[in-house]
């Protein structure tokens, strides 16, 4: 039993110490993308805290996502999210990614990142500074640590599963919600 616990602890420690990120542009104006790439340059040197940029979603732990989700990137975003293996996290970079920003209610935009996939950390700003992105990753890892301490992980996982289901069937649930209002 102690061996199993030790390995579990080592895996938790590893998850905190080696977050590998993948960057995805869901329809941003490229302002936030430039800043995201900025934060990976030798000036900030994110390898100090173990952050590496990966090309393949299957290798990565954190999806760093910029821009409001357009109808064209929506399916690709879901596909990339589903290709990542658990445990996986999403950071929404920029105001557009958080809420839809100035593109809200546009005919070709579904809204922020959280209208499609669950988001763990929101970073507002137009464009976001690289320091804010680094602090967001730090906050995410802190959140992870606390979640492990509180042992609320299972509840969170259930919530996330529900959220993905509602995001997939977004239109149906919206209709269901509206119906009781009409009755009242």
């Amino acid at each position, binding site marked *: 039993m102690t061996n199993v616990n030790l390995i579990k602890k*080592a*895996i*938790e*420690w*590893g*998850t905190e*110490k*080696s977050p590998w990120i993948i960057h995805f542009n869901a329809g941003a104006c490229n302002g936030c993308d430039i800043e995201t790439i900025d934060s990976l340059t*030798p000036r900030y*040197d994110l*390898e*100090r805290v*173990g952050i590496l940029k*990966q*090309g*393949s979603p*299957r*290798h990565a*732990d954190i999806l760093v996502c910029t821009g409001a989700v357009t109808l064209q990137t929506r399916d690709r975003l879901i596909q990339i999210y589903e*290709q*990542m*293996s*658990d*445990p996986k996290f999403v950071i929404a970079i920029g105001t557009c990614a958080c809420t839809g920003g100035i593109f809200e209610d546009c005919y070709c935009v579904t809204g922020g990142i959280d209208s499609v996939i669950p988001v763990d950390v929101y970073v507002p700003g137009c464009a976001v500074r690289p320091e804010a992105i680094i602090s967001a990753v730090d906050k995410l890892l802190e959140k992870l640590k606390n979640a492990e301490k509180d042992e609320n992980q299972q509840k969170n996982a259930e919530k996330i599963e529900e959220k993905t289901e509602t995001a997939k069937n977004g239109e149906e649930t919206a209709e269901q919600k509206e119906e009781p209002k009409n009755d009242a």
Partner: protein
Amino acid sequence: MISFLKMLLAAFIFPGFLFLSVYSLVLDFIDRKLYARMQNRVGPPWYQPVADFFKLIGKKTLIPVEANKMMFRIMPLVSLAAVAAAFLYVPVLGQDAVFSFDGDLIIVLYFLTVPPIAAFLAGWYSRGVYATIGATRILTQLFVYEVPLFISLLAPTLIAGTWSISELTAFYAAHPLYALINLPAAFAALISFQCKLERAPFDTPEAETEIVSGALVEYGGRLLAFFKMAHSCELVLVISLFSAVFLPFMTGYVFADFLLYIVKTLVILLLLTLMRVSMARLKINNVVSFCWKVLAPVALFQVVLNLVIRGSLQI
């Protein structure tokens, strides 16, 4: 019975599998740190390779629907097993390897061919577009660097008159001046090893900016962890083999020899990292023409030189 236990201890603990995996983590860290320092960065902390390994172990393994499940699961272990088996024939503690017989140099060279083939099969059976392109590039590169690598590693055996790595090391340790003759082959072998390890400027099969990460693009979680481990163990194996064949200088005391082994491996790692930092990626056609037009003639020149020296010295 006791000799059998001793053999098991040597094969699995020291200088076998456990030493190989621990030293591979150490060399992996030193490689990344040197790379960072040469780019004017601070670089990762010392525990970074360990943290990466444990993180990957803990992640869920996803297998693509179209992939061949058995091949997808087996290939990382095949790669790791081949490297670990080959390491037993390379001298670490003094001049004697754990096992040795006349011809083990050939065996080690063939074991070294297994990791690229395993990566090729892994990429091929993943059935992804990028994985297939990466896999074919691995195979193209394999056919190209294997010839200069084999010739340049077999050239020193012409003077020593043996195909056993341990006896080869013992011969050159006794006659250190003969080792200097093999410098052209050492040059060719170092570059071929860089090519085998798929590090820049020969990282065409896993070119991040063009084909995402080559043959291993569909891998994740535990299977990727084993592939990464096999890759860094391959680095240790290649460096140890190079130091045994081309830098066979010994003091005669076991402990001092082990320290000398570590110094030698670090120096070779410095050269390999320097090559990785200072050069950009070659296109696959440039890799092919470089290996055939520069490395293969250098290795062949070494064979001719060694035959002439062997004939004139009547060894």
